[in-house]
Every structure is written in C-alpha cells, then in structure tokens.
C-alpha cells in the first residue's frame, strides 16, 4: 500500500527556526521498516542488501550542521542501496508528485524515483540535526529558502543523479502544463541533476508527457515555452525525443479527480471507477 501524506503537524509555541517541517518522529523505525518492506515484498531478489548498514550510512548526515550537508555525504548510502532499474520503466517528473505515484502503481507500471530503494526510504520524509546541538530538530528543518546544503535537498540531488545514471531504454518525463512557473523548471531537480546524467549509450529515446489540470489553464503544451526549451536542450545533447499533450493513459487516472492536482471539488465515483478500470487494463 503506498503511503499518502496528510497535512498538519504539531503546533509549536515558539516560532520555528527554519521554514520547512521538522524531522519525522521515529525516523529510524520508518526508514528500516520501509527498507525491509522494499526488500521483502517488492524486490526480494535484492536480498544481499543490508538495511542496517544502509541506515548507518544514511545517518551520518544527522550529525552534521543542517546547512552543511552535501550530496556527496550520501555517497556511501547510495552505494549500498543502489540497484538496477528495469529498462524502459523510468519515469521522471516535475510538479505532479501524487499523480506520478498513482500512475506508477507502486513500481508495477513504471519505476519512479519513489519506487527505487534509495528514493523510497526518504519519500515524503524530512530530517535534520539541530543547529547548535547534537540531537535531531523535530520542530523545523531548513529548505532551499534557508540554505542550499540542507539534508533533504542534498539527499534528493544525490538520489536523482543516481536514478538518472541507472535509467535505460525509453525515458519518460511527466510535466505539468498548468503550472504557472513553467512545465519544465529550468532550475530544478530534473534540469540540474537528472538530464545531465542521462547516459547517451543506454538511453534509446525520451518521451515527454505534458499533462494539464482538468478544467485548469493550458499554459504550456508541447513545443511551447519551457517545454520548447527542454526539447531544444535534448536535441542539442543528441537525444531522440517525442512529446505528447495529455497522454491518454495518464489522463484516465487524472479524469474526474481534480484533487490529485490539489483541487478540492467532489468527483463522480462512477466515471472514476471506469477510468481506473480502463487504466488497469494497460
């Protein structure tokens, strides 16, 4: 069962030092449980992986100043947890985390970064040491607004690089064409850490899907705006690419469920079931 985050956190009395949510309580148990679950249920052939060792490698960042954690601090963690990604199954994305998770079907249909071990253990979690003390900060943690070298961003940079390097065959990218700041963020995880690390000798072609919110604005589509920038960049890098607006299979999952794009309107259950059923046929 994929987990799903809910809004809300502890109401603190003193103002928080940082702008992001604090370390998730029982971080170690959640981490170890997810690692064990991944190996036992999703990829049992990876039984040589040692969750305790992976945790030990990860937790070194919990001893560092929360604004001095570099992506390279996760090198050993990545080394111990990396594994192969099935060909043609990689799914990159920007600004549609929940839709991607739903569409990827827990790694069965596609394998997004949240479906590989080194992405799954940290998905939706936050962690950091206190600024001036050795314990963990459960009240708040720095985001990129506070400082660049924070534990969570550095984790995702490191994981993104590895994920891109290990991807092969047909590469899929899902972008949000209703996002006001641009479907393809020219400064973002995909642009800065994933695209540069796609392996020319392993990637056959890149397929871009530009999805639009139901009833939402079609701010950008294939060949327009920032999507055009991505297309030109890929061409310059020598990649074969194609682009589809509102890719049908994803649209089926998206149909009648604006809540996936943080809308709150009520959906009709019935057409949703039809849509889900049709997607299940793929």
């Amino acid at each position, binding site marked *: 069962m994929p987990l799903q985050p809910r809004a809300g956190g502890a109401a603190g009395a003193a103002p928080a030092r940082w702008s992001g949510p604090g370390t998730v309580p029982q971080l170690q*148990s959640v981490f170890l449980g997810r690692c064990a679950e991944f190996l036992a249920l999703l990829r049992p052939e990876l039984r040589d992986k040692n969750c305790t060792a992976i945790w030990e490698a990860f937790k070194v960042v919990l001893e560092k100043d929360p604004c001095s954690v570099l992506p390279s601090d996760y090198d050993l963690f990545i080394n111990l947890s990396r594994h192969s990604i099935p060909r043609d199954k990689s799914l990159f994305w920007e600004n549609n985390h929940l839709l991607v998770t739903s569409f990827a079907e827990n790694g069965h249909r596609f394998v997004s970064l949240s479906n590989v071990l080194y992405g799954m253990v940290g998905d939706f979690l936050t962690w950091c040491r206190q600024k001036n003390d050795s314990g963990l900060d459960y009240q708040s943690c720095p985001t990129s607004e506070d400082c660049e070298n924070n534990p969570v961003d550095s984790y995702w940079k490191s994981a993104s690089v590895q994920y891109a390097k290990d991807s092969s065959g047909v590469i899929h990218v899902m972008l949000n064409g209703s996002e006001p700041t641009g479907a393809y963020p020219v400064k973002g995880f995909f642009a800065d850490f994933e695209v540069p690390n796609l392996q020319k000798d392993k990637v056959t072609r890149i397929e871009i899907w530009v999805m639009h919110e139901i009833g939402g604005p079609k701010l950008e589509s294939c060949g327009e705006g920032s999507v055009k920038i991505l297309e030109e960049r890929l061409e310059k890098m020598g990649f074969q690419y194609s682009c589809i607006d509102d890719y049908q299979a994803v649209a089926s999952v998206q149909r009648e469920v604006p809540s996936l794009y943080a809308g709150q309107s009520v959906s009709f259950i019935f057409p949703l079931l039809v849509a889900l059923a049709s997607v299940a046929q793929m």
Partner: protein
Amino acid sequence: MASHRFRVVSGSENEAFCSKRAKICLGVFLGLLVLVAVAVVLGILLGRRSPKHQQWDGKGSTANFREIVLGRCYTYTQLVHPELSTDCRKIEKAFINAFISKDPCSATEEDYVPLLKLGDQTVPCDKTVFWSKTKELAHQYTWVQREMFTLENTLLGYIADDLSWCGDADSSEINHESCPSRRNCSSNFVSVFWNLLSKRFAENACGMVQVLLNGSISNAFDKNSTFGRVEVHSLQPTKVHTLQAWVVQDIGKTPRDTCSGSSLNDLKLILSRRNIKFTCQENYR
C-alpha cells in the same frame, strides 16, 4: 611350561615391531571411524527428530516481519493519520504475542483481542468501501478518494496487508520457512486475523457503504469470499441503511456477471432479509 615356546618367528625383530605398531594404528583408526560414524548417525537422527520449524504448504513469514510492522505503524500514525494516537511499540508487541510460541493451527479470535483493542479505529459514516476480487482497483480508488476507507486503509489492515506470519509451539521464533495454508488448517493465524478484522470493520460501518465487485468473473458476488462469508453478515441494520454495489468489468471484454445476474440477486435477498437497502450499478453499456 615355557611361554616363549610359541613365540611366532616371522622374520626379523624389526618387522615384528612394525606390524605391532601398525596394528595399534589400525585399531585406533578403526575406533575413530566408528566414533565418527556414530556421531554422524546421531546427528542425522537428532536433527530430523527435532527440526527447527515444522513444514507447511504456505509461504513462510515475511522477512523482517517485526521491522515492517513497526515501520508501517509509524508511517500510518505519523504521516497518513496523525490524528490517531497509538503506541506503535505496544502494537508490535501485541501482534507478535498473538501468534508466537503457539501451534500455528490453533489460532482463535481471543489471541488477537489485545491487538484489536490497541488498534481500535472508527471509520466515519458513509466512508466504508468493501471489495471482493477487486483489490487493486479498490485501493486505487481510495488512493484518490482519500477520505474513503478500505480495510487496508485502517491501521491494522495497513500494517498487515500482504504480509504472512506464523510461529511454532516449541519455539519463540517466527517461522520464516513456511506457514500453514488454508488447506493445511483453516484456523491459521493469518486467516483468523483477516476474518476477525473484516468482521469488526463491517460491524463498525455506518450510513451508506459501498462494495466493488468484479463483473469479469462468473460470480461477482461470491458467498465463499470474505465479503460473502463474513462482511455482509456483520453489517448492522441499525447503523447501515444502504449497501451500494459497483460491478466493474474489464474494458473490451464481455461481462460475465451484471447487476441483474443471479449472484447479485442473492446478495439483494440477503440484504433485504436484514433490512438493508441494496442498490447496484455497472459500467458495461
């Protein structure tokens, strides 16, 4: 009599000495061989007589069962439903204690009472979703309709989903090699758990409840499924006024069962006898 008269005269003094030594060596060697043979035989016999765990038809307990249970409990209570206040360490302990050191075919509902008490949870009215032979679809539905609950969206269902577990009467360890299948015995710890949890889930339901049924098999409503055996009969007419059934079929294939089919008629009959209204919708046109 002179004892020395029958001394064997076979060659030189040296030769006689070697053969004596050889005999001693041979004797010692044979003795050792016998000892080793006895040890091996004993080892085999003892090993076979008290195996670490009994052998069953079903797959063994999930690897790292305790860590998964604990991790899932924390994920659920901290990230999915933080409004629940539960001590996950106690839950893990109650879960393990339910089946450890017990004959894996001797499970009863009483074994799970402490666990169910700790994991007690009320699903809001009109939000209960049952499923039968439509697990993936039902979960996709509640993934996008986040206020709806299948059994696996409740704390205990979430923790136990897709896991297997059993122990042994003679051991305090979890049996990872094999666990009894339903064919071995019906009162195994996994079956009893899900029957009990399903019963409670249905007993606690209120308002309008829904069920997703599979119209691509011959009996969308199966009397032998958990839904048919346990859940339908545990609904409380004082709390549940309507059961809405959705019969969904694989796209592009002719449906095997529909709302007007006989199995759905059976379901309608059962519910009308219990004073619960029944409505049905299907997606085949």
